[in-house]
């Protein structure tokens, strides 16, 4: 009912994107093999040592990668709908830029500032053209998330200048200075 493995399209062309996926998985199998060989095995555990499952996983990944490559050679498996929708590279670019900015800024500037930058970039990528309004929303959301998680749940998420200043204010208001 739901299996489309052997779905054979009329023209049996090699599907490049699917081939790349198959090769990517094969590369993944190669990486697991390389890392498995790097596991030192002491003779004490040679019977069922720490490498048995890694070898099984490597073998499984390799076989599956080959099956995917075969499927790609037979025309691939992408549904027509996916193929026909062009990828919006610009939107994706802005989202990726937002993610990279977040990872780069979170240590020097703290969670809130990094989140605001990411939020504005992602919104812009999705088509919003009000960066100032988005920045304001982001500030409120990030501070709510920060205080919700950091103070209520005790999760330490990167504090920068904004958080430290506000922490002092909040502690003063609550009389919690310690």
């Amino acid at each position: 009912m739901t299996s489309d493995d052997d779905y054979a399209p009329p023209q049996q062309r090699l599907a490049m994107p699917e081939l790349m996926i198959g090769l990517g998985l094969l590369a993944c199998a190669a990486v697991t093999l390389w890392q498995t060989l790097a596991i030192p095995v002491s003779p004490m555990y040679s019977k069922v040592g720490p490498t048995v499952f890694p070898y099984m996983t490597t073998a499984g990944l390799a076989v599956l990668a080959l099956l995917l490559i075969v499927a790609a050679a037979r025309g691939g498996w992408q549904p027509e709908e996916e193929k026909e929708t062009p990828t919006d590279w610009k939107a994706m670019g802005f989202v990726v830029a937002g993610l990279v900015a977040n990872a780069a800024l979170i240590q020097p500037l703290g969670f809130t500032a990094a989140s605001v930058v990411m939020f504005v970039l992602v919104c812009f990528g999705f088509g919003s053209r009000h960066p100032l309004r988005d920045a304001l929303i982001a500030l409120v959301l990030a501070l709510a998330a920060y205080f919700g998680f950091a103070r209520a749940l005790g999760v330490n998420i990167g504090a920068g200048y904004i958080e430290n200043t506000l922490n002092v204010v909040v502690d003063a208001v609550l009389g919690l200075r310690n």
Partner: protein
Amino acid sequence: MDTLASLANGFAVAFTPTNLLWCLVGTTLGTAIGVLPGLGPALTIALLLPITYQVAPEASFILFAGIYYGAMYGGSTTSILLNTPGESATIVTALEGNRMARSGRGGAALATAAIGSFVAGTIGTLGVTFLAPVVVSFALAFGPAEYFSLMVLSFVMVSAVLGSSSVRGLSSLFLGFFLGMIGVDIQTGQPRFTFGLTELLDGVSVVIVAVGLFAVGETLYVASRRYAGRDEIVPLKGSLYMTAQEWARSWKAWLRGALIGFPIGALPAGGAEIPTFLSYAAEKKLSKHKEEFGTTGAIEGVAGPEAANNASAAGVLVPMLTLGLPTSATAAIMLSAFQSYGIQPGPLLLTTQANLVWGLIASLFIANVLLVVLNLPLIGLWVRLLKIPAPQLYAGILVFATVGSYGISQSPIDLVLLYILGGIGFLMRRFDFPTAPVIIGMILGPLAEAQFRRAMTIANGDWTVFFTHPLSLTLLLLALAALVAPRIWKVIEQRRLRGQEPIPGDA
């Protein structure tokens, strides 16, 4: 009766004011994230895992269970009004529900979905109550070999049988195995797959994987497809009260849906997709109003699948609580919450953690009642949530993704890992790989490995132990049959269609 006494004890746990509050918070949050496209219960519970360091196990599992059930209720609202199924289990609800909404009967569709969810959720929870102790009595006889074989069967069912392609499903599962093995091997203390990075010695947190695949991957995917058609919210029209005729058409569908959904959910295969499709097919066949299917929307086509969905969601808890066998991404993350408390789910859970398990089950009954109240009179509130514009919604999801991942160890490496997994999640979504097997493989893979090595150690390294134990052999043969039978069947079908002479004895 023993079960009833335990359940009464469970209600005593669940009815304490704090636990009732957790249940209310969980159901409200669950409904909200069920309504919002792009957020699901697996992601939400993953983000809330740090709560396990702060509160008692009872409280956090009552919260998680509320989220789990709430998301099922909320998901139907989105399917009916937006025609964008939030998750695979509500695809069928969108088929008829959205058509009903377009022909002005959205209120009745929402009502039959919510009440049907309540009826089926209650039947399903009753099923968990009485089936769990029975399964435990069987499971106590399981040795490591049987457990390993059961897990193999479960792996095959979850990844190869229930998805659109067994090769892609198994690829996801093996990727999960790989992620699950990163870190120090518990038995020997050897680091594995760490690439020499000390940050990876502790392994990759399931939070990072779930958030990367579900939040970052999903956001990238939605961004990449902005050229695709935009869905419109159908304004909520029509009374929320069902007419006598609509009740008459709904109640049988609810019961049938529940009876289809629960057993399939309770199998160590799980999956809410199959029962909803089965229920839809059954209702379409039995309905006296076939002309409404696919045109103006048939109420049976909403009532049955919604009931099946919720009953199977309850059923998934049976293998989870009795065998420690998660069969959905959400259940796998809940299992990791057990591990974070140092509790190993398995047949002993019902006796050693009686308060926790029975409190959890009792809270499910309470959650069902709360959810009907939250979802019917307050429906207007949830509809408003649907109006959050996509840019701010997805940007907000990424902010919370950062909170959940960066909070683990305040290391930007975690964020880099998160984004790599997000990229993988994007590719998986784009090329139709299921993501749930990654999470299941990651959580269950190491447990399967432990059982495998235990069985081998007991048998003195004899590989045949898995084939000489009758129960273990049966489970492995079932797994093989599940993997191979559909293919053989398809080959036979193709032969028949091509009109070639059937080959005798070829089965």
